[in-house]
């Protein structure tokens, strides 16, 4: 049985420090897997390694049974892995629509000639790009549509910026989306709504999702499986219930109780 994404003995070292080591991980198509762990556990490094922004020291990353180790980030995206960023990194001065249109770059083909000659193929593709962008944005209800499309991204509220991040990732037409702390900084209402949306990303759009999160309610409500990282090493995995009662996990977050330090 082959997995959609498989990580084998991944090790990432920064200047003598192992940010990740001995990481074995897999995701099957259609799953939603959460990666949790205390701060500094190496979760974002993990995502960076998969997307190619960071080089792995050892180990292998297999997507659809082929290694993506050492590929350029845009090649990784082209293969079908999209991601969002922990500290929302939109293109602030491009409009919302343009943000989502530009992320379709690797799925489209039109070159300079088409643009200059305004060929039918070019116009057709532009139309399709626009439609796909609007569809992705429409996923979030009426917030990011209509007159909003032409507004610059920096004008958005925080919650809307996070939604735009996700819309952008959706527009790259991936099979796997890596969500890096999608609900960070949102209020409870927004969080609840987004939790539902994440489920719909899988059920309606067919994406496989790996998610880094700190908000345990979201993790509980949405994940099929949970993996716990601490200091770059996986220390537990299983369903949410299994993991949340695992003493090692509790120790990683809260520390050992005084009396058992005998």
């Amino acid at each position: 049985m082959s997995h959609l994404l498989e990580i084998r003995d991944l090790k990432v070292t920064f200047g003598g420090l192992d940010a990740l080591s001995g990481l074995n991980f897999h995701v099957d198509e259609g799953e939603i897997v959460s990666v949790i762990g205390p701060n500094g556990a190496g979760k974002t490094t993990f995502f960076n390694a998969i997307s190619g922004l960071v080089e792995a020291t050892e180990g292998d990353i297999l997507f659809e049974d082929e290694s993506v180790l050492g590929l350029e980030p845009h090649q990784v995206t082209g293969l079908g892995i999209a991601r969002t960023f922990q500290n929302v990194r939109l293109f602030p001065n491009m409009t919302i629509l343009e943000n989502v249109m530009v992320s379709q770059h690797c799925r489209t083909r039109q070159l300079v000639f088409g643009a200059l000659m305004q060929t039918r193929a070019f116009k057709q593709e532009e139309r399709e790009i626009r439609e796909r962008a609007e569809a992705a944005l429409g996923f979030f209800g009426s917030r990011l549509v209509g007159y909003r499309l032409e507004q610059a991204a920096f004008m958005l509220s925080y919650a809307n910026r996070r939604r735009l991040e996700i819309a952008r990732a959706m527009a790259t037409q991936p099979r796997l989306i890596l969500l890096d702390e999608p609900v960070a900084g949102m209020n409870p209402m927004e969080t609840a709504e987004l939790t539902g949306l994440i489920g719909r990303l899988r059920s309606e759009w067919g994406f496989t999702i790996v998610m880094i999160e700190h908000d345990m309610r979201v993790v509980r409500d949405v994940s099929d499986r949970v993996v716990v990282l601490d200091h770059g090493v996986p220390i537990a995995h299983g369903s949410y219930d299994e993991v949340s009662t695992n003493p090692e996990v509790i120790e990683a977050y809260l520390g050992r109780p005084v009396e058992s330090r005998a």
Partner: protein
Amino acid sequence: MTATINRKSARRVSKVDRFLTFIRVFLVSLIVIGAVAFLAQQFAPDNPFARWRNPDAMGLTADQFKGLLMSGLSQGAMYGLIALGYSMVYGVLGFINFAHGEVFMAGAMTGFIASEKFNANGLWQSNFLLCLVLIIIMAIGISTLMAVLMERVAYRPLRNSPRLIPLITSIGVSFFIQNAVMGLFGPASKSYPQLPEWLSKQRSILTFEIAGTKILVLVVAAVSMVGLWYLVERTMTGKAMRAVAEDKEIAALMGINVNRTIVTTFAVGGAMAGVAGILWGLLFRGVTHMTGFLPGIKAFTAAVIGGIGNLGGAMAGGVALGSAESVAPLVILEPLGVPGVSQLKDAVAFTVLVLVLLFKPSGLFGERLSAEDRA
């Protein structure tokens, strides 16, 4: 919305990388062939290989070579002094102060004006050393003032801007100063008065025939470096400078007055450039409003060669560049059959610049960048 998977080149080595490797190989072979031809020239003058490339090549006598080397070293020492300013500013603020070459030129100009006055009233001839000290002090004063003013007016407001904005601003400042100086003092070349005999005559040191002025340059440069080392390593100001260069925010939290330290950094860099200006004037005797442009770029190259932010490296880079610029045209290019090599001296410097930035931007001795700039 399922993805269409498009598997292309699966490795990081792209056409661009291949092209770069090609350039590397090409240049290295060029240098090797040139050097070999040169050596062949030296040892067997009628060697057919040497003759093939350049029938007129005459090779260099040991004396000529030493002469070239000395010129290169002294010029390199000056590049090194200027490079210190580039290095320090980049280490602390993270941008290239394009106008630093003009700070150097200001020092040279000041030296010219002052020395003319001294010459006119006779002090130059009667007590040269006093004049020398005075013009050095004046040049340091003006250069420092100019550097500090630059920082206050043009760079401080841009402290938090992306890196390119202060660079572009510094280009504007450079232009402005060049042309202001031209407007004030005229476009003609200015020459320093005649140097006293005892200074300019050739001396013999360890089989090297070297003009007294060049010795002066090397000595002054060395003294300045020692002074700088003392300042940076042993004084509180220097510690503050190093702290601010590491991480501005944390330095501020530690109670260091970041603004004042940055001003000091500019001032010290400016002072070094001012000294270099005087030395340039003494050695080359001529200065115009454009004098700062080429040495400025070459000094920046030196700073990068030594590792930007690394002060010792900057001086080392300067000396290396000066020597290479002096020696390479005759040692590598001429044997390859390139006529008119003395014109290409600047081209050599620019080529070194391009090569260093392409292939070893962290320099030979390692960069010292601040936390924000370590990309």
